[in-house]
C-alpha cells in the first residue's frame, strides 16, 4: 500500500515477531473484537427481515436521525469555533492564555454526566441563567438545542486537539513570508494557514461527529429522554435494553457501530499524514 518497507519487514519470519502478533490478537480479541461481534450476533438473531422491522420502527428511525442531525451541527459548529480557538490560543499571546488552554481541555477529563449537569444548572429553570431566561421563553434544556449545546461542550477538546498541534508546529516562516508580501492577518489566515490546517480540521470534524453520535452521559442529563422528540440513538438503545428489548437495542447499536466504523475508515485514509504534508 505505502510501498515503503516497514522496519519490521526484515524480521517478518522470526519467531518473536509471530509471538508478538499473536499476543496482540490474544489481547484484543476478548477485549475489543468479541464484544463488537456480540452486538451483531444479537442484532441479527432474527434474520434480515426482523432486523429491518426493528430498525424501521418510527422511534428507532427518529432517534437515529436526531443523532445524525445533532452530530452534523455539532461538527460544523465545532469546526468553526474549535479552529478559531486553536488559532487564537496558538498565535496570540494574552493574559490568561495558560489557564484557558488547560480549561478548554477539561471536558475530556470530567465525566460527561457532570458536564450535562453543569449545563442543566446553568440553563435549566432553576439554573444560574435559566432562572431569568426560561420565563422569557428561552428553554434550551430538554430540547434538541440543549443536546446540541451539551455535545458542543463535550466534543470541543477533540476539535482543538486535532487542530492546535498542527498550528503549533506550522513554521512561522510561511506566515512571515505572507506578511512581507503585504498580506493582512485575515488574508494570511485564509490563504496560508487554513489550507495547511485542512487535514487537522477534517480529522477533528470526523472525530467530533463520531463522538457526538455516541454521546450518552451529558445527553441523558439534558435531553429529558422524550421518545420521538429528544431521544437520541444511544438513549434509545439504553431505554430498549432496560426494557428487555435486547434485539431492538442491538439493531440500532449495530447501525451506530457501522457508521462509526465508516467514519474511522475515512479518517484514517484521508488524513494519513496531514501534519507532514502541511508543514
Amino acid at each position, binding site marked *: 500500500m505505502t510501498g515503503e518497507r516497514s522496519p519490521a519487514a526484515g524480521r517478518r519470519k522470526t519467531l518473536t515477531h509471530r509471538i508478538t502478533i499473536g499476543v496482540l490478537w490474544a489481547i484484543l480479541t476478548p477485549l475489543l473484537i468479541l464484544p463488537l461481534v456480540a452486538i451483531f450476533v444479537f442484532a441479527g438473531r432474527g434474520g434480515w427481515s426482523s432486523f429491518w422491522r426493528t430498525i424501521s420502527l418510527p422511534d428507532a428511525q427518529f432517534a437515529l436521525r436526531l443523532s445524525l442531525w445533532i452530530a452534523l451541527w455539532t461538527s460544523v459548529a465545532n469546526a468553526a469555533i474549535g479552529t478559531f480557538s486553536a488559532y487564537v490560543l496558538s498565535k496570540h499571546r494574552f493574559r490568561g492564555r495558560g489557564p484557558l488552554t488547560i480549561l478548554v481541555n477539561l471536558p475530556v477529563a470530567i465525566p460527561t454526566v457532570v458536564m450535562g449537569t453543569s449545563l442543566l444548572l446553568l440553563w435549566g429553570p432553576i439554573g444560574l441563567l435559566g432562572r431569568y431566561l426560561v420565563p422569557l421563553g428561552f428553554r434550551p434544556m430538554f430540547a434538541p438545542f440543549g443536546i446540541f449545546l451539551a455535545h458542543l461542550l463535550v466534543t470541543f477538546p477533540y476539535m482543538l486537539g486535532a487542530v492546535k498541534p498542527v498550528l503549533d508546529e506550522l513554521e512561522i516562516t510561511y506566515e512571515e513570508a505572507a506578511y512581507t508580501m503585504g498580506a493582512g492577518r485575515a488574508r494570511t489566515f485564509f490563504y496560508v494557514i487554513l489550507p495547511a490546517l485542512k487535514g487537522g480540521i477534517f480529522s477533528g470534524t470526523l472525530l467530533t461527529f463520531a463522538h457526538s453520535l455516541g454521546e450518552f452521559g451529558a445527553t441523558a442529563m439534558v435531553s*429529558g429522554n422524550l421518545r420521538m422528540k429528544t431521544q437520541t440513538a444511544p438513549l434509545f438503545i439504553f431505554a430498549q*435494553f*432496560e426494557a428487555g428489548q*435486547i*434485539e431492538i437495542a442491538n439493531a440500532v447499536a449495530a447501525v451506530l457501530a457501522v457508521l462509526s466504523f465508516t467514519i474511522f475508515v475515512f479518517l484514517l485514509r484521508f488524513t494519513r499524514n496531514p501534519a507532514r504534508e502541511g508543514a
Partner: protein
Amino acid sequence: MKRKWTAETLLAIVLGAALALYLAWPSIQKIRKTRPRQDVLVVYGFSILGEVMNEAIFPAFSRQWKEQTGEDVVFTSSFSGSGTITNQIIMGAPAAIAILSHEGDARRLKEAGAVRTDWREFPARGVVNRTPFIILVRKGNPKRIRSFDDLARSKIGIVHPDPLTSGGARWAILAEFVSATRDPSGADSEDQRRGKAQLLGIWRNVVGQSPSAMGVRTQFENGFGDALITYEQQGLIPRPEGEKKVEIVRPSRTVLSEHIAVLVDRNIRPRDRFLTLAFRDFLFSPEAQRLFVKYGFRSAVDPSLDRTNPALADMPGAVTVDQMGGWEAANALVFEKIWKGEVLKELGK
C-alpha cells in the same frame, strides 16, 4: 498539492449524499403532504408503565379523543425510574402529567412548585393502579425461596432496584420490613428490631443494583442473582427474552404499591388544560382501569375488575401504606431511620 480523484473520494461523496438524503427525508415528505393540526400531550411515567401506556392507554385515549372532538392527539412520553423523572420534572422537563411510583415523589414535585393541584382529590386519592410486591425467582425455584425470610439466608444473591432513583426499591424496602413485623405500622420497638434484622439480612445478600425496576429485571434475566424483589406486574408481563425462565413467589405478608398520577400544573398551558384533564379523567375510567388490569396491575378505583385477569391471585396478606401509617410516616421510619440510618451504616462496616 492536488488531490487525486480516487474511488475513495467518490465513495465518500456518494455516502455523504446518501446520508444527506436520509436526514432530509422526513422534511421532504412533509412538503408533499401537510399534516392536520395535532395536539401534543407530554406524559412522564415511572419505568414499568412504559408498555401498558404505549401499547394500550395512549392508543385508546387517542381513539376516544378523535371520536369526541375530531382532533388527533399525539403522545410524547418518557419512562424511567420514578426518582429520575421526578428530578427531571423539577429541573424543567416539559411533562404535563406524571405517573409516579409513590406519593413521596409527588410530594417532592409539589414542594418544588411543579404540582399545585392536590392529587388526593382525584378518584381513589390519585392512585391510578397498584400491585403487590413479590419475589421473582428462577424457573423451578432452585433455591426454594418462599418468603422474605428466605432471602436473608446465606448463599442467596439478590438483585435490587436502587432506592436512590427507583420508587420500586422504596416499596421493596417497605415490603421487606413489613414482612417481619407483627403489626404493619411497626410502631413498637420489638417490631422495629425485627424489621431491621430482616432488612440487614436481605441487604447483606444484595449483589446487584440498577436505577429502575425495569432495568433490574433485565439484569436478573441476564443471569444475575437468584431472586429479585419487584412489582407483581413485572412477573406477569411476557417478555421476549426472559419469558418462562422466571416464576413468581407471592409472600404471605407484603406491601401493595400505589402509583400516583399528578398534574404538572407548571407545564400545562391554558389551551392544553382541557385535553390534559380529559386524559387525567380517562386514566381513572373503567376502560383504562380494565387495560391496566389486563397488563397485570390491580385497580384501586374498582378492585372487582381484578377478577378479569386470572393471573392476579388473591393476596390477603398485602397491606397498603395507609395501614403502615401513611407514606410519610412509613418512609421516615423504615427508609430514612432504619434502612438509611442504621442498616446501610452497619453493612458499610
